[in-house]
């Protein structure tokens, strides 16, 4: 798939995100918009996932993900981007996006396996747990002689959780080198700028000191840069170290008035704001 096609998908996913959070008057648009390019690049180009269709013409989802690359979303509050990408990829119907955060929906506020939504392998939302789960899945692949990779996306605010550093210490010690972790460096969290709330200081130096192979994506909202970064990360796997991508993004990327501030971390747009956002995002694949 060409970059242009991926960008078109990303534009549609961004429309889905703002429409979903508008539809239920809650949710987290900021981080979702910032990580759209990464998730689109992963699911539509970089990850090896089964496209085999099953019931209803949707992708037949296997929980164990044998012989597939796996993706874990640790910062579960950016569920809108995850749900949209999964639906657009073909795990379930895009019309189901309209049920986001509403009663009796499979699209819970934070991702869960509990409602059996295809594409989700573990619940996340309470922060700091996803990297550990991803490590476990990566170890299972090693035990099975499965050479596919495991990806895990975390937030930068999430780095304040202690469990992250237990996992950060574990993965290099046990040479979990089929793991690519990504930190979304948008510099924002609920209470303000991450550097003010609780500075992460030098994450690159920290992860290096813990034994990770650390690389950067300077602009995680530039599809070419994301693709190049993921390609490089894959080349770094299988060398005895886990791989960490520090990916700079703009919270709210794609919607000018949502960018660069923590204010849109967890706030839904009103009708007027929705219209202003959608005017900036071409409808490429058809709205749900």
């Amino acid at each position: 798939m060409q970059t242009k096609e991926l960008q078109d998908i990303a534009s549609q996913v961004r429309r889905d995100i703002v429409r979903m959070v508008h539809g239920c008057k809650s949710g987290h648009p900021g981080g979702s918009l910032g990580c759209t390019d990464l998730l689109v690049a992963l699911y539509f180009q970089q990850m090896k996932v089964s496209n085999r269709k099953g019931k209803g013409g949707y992708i037949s989802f296997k929980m164990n993900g044998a012989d597939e690359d796996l993706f874990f979303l640790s910062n579960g509050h950016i569920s809108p981007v995850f749900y949209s990408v999964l639906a657009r990829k073909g795990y379930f119907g895009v019309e189901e996006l309209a049920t986001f955060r509403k009663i009796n929906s499979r699209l819970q506020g934070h991702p869960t396996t509990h409602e059996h939504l295809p594409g989700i392998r573990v619940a996340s939302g309470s922060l700091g747990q996803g990297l550990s789960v991803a490590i476990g899945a990566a170890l299972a692949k090693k035990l099975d002689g499965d050479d596919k990779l495991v990806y895990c996306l975390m937030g930068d605010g999430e780095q304040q959780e202690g469990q992250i550093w237990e996992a950060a210490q574990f993965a290099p010690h046990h040479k979990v080198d089929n793991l690519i972790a990504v930190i979304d460096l948008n510099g924002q969290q609920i209470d303000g700028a991450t550097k003010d709330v609780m500075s992460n200081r030098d994450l690159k130096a920290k992860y290096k000191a813990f034994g990770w192979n650390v690389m950067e994506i300077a602009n995680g909202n530039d599809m070419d840069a994301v693709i190049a970064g993921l390609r490089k990360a894959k080349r770094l796997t299988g060398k005895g170290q886990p791989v960490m991508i520090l990916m700079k993004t703009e919270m709210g990327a794609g919607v000018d008035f949502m960018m660069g501030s923590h204010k849109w971390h967890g706030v839904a747009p009103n009708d007027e704001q929705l219209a202003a956002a959608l005017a900036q995002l071409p409808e490429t694949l058809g709205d749900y």
Partner: protein
Amino acid sequence: MKKYTFTEKKDTRSGFGDAMTELGESHPNVVALCADLVGSLKIAPFIKNHPERFIQTGIAEANMIGIASGLAIGGKIPYATTFANFGSGRVYDQIRQSVAYSDKNVKIAVSHAGLTLGEDGATHQILEDLAMMRAMPNMTVINPCDYNQTKAATIAIADHEGPVYLRFGRPVVPVFTPADQKFEIGKAWMVNEGKDVSIIATGHLVWEAIKAGEILEEKGIDAEIINIHTIKPLDTAAILKSVKKTKCVVTCEEHQANGGLGDAVAQTLSQNFLAPQEYIAVKDSFGESGVPEDLMAKYGLTAEHIVEAVLKVISRK
């Protein structure tokens, strides 16, 4: 009173360790994790036989629970092991989100539960874990009573799909259940049939209940003794059948009175059949350092305490 004897004393954790050795051969998908307590959990033989299926996490229990969840996603049957204190309260949210809510086939197998951990004191003597784990949806909670039952339970849960909290203990205690028993999750074990009082016990308190039954027999009291090894799901049918016959009950556990076996039984009775109940349990306090026998005596968890409670509950009928 049915006669129970024992020829040896063994720790329940050795039942766990020996079961793991067997599971190493019988279940290729069983994987063991441990947070720096391999010796205490008695899993050295499993590790020796299957080093590739053992994961040392270091002193990082939260990470261990998450890794276990990930292993389960990959089709493994992970046994995450540590002390009960560190495998329950310390990691409650990890178990809740990454295991129970996510419906992962993770076995949390924890030793040194309760007062009988002994000299290390209250920091390590978890007495609230059954309450916490009972409160968690989708969690099976098991507290076996001796070496043989622990071994049987450890093997049985490997073939049970779903999260399990299996708690056992440190000290050597009488081995009085059959070595060849079939462990049925959620099924009460009738230790002794009687008509005057139902003594419902779990874990280390089952042997105390048997001793109490013998003392009561001398006093002319015919005690029915039931072992509830599975706190959740609770065998409510067995409990109700017994209490409807005896009209009173004493529950016995090495745990807080708040939220444990006693409260589980009370919940059942209050909705189905009202009967006086007495609790043999720790009464809203922390433990302390000491040898297990002294602690059990000080905190009211011996056969003599059960006898007193039985006399009291019968008087309330």
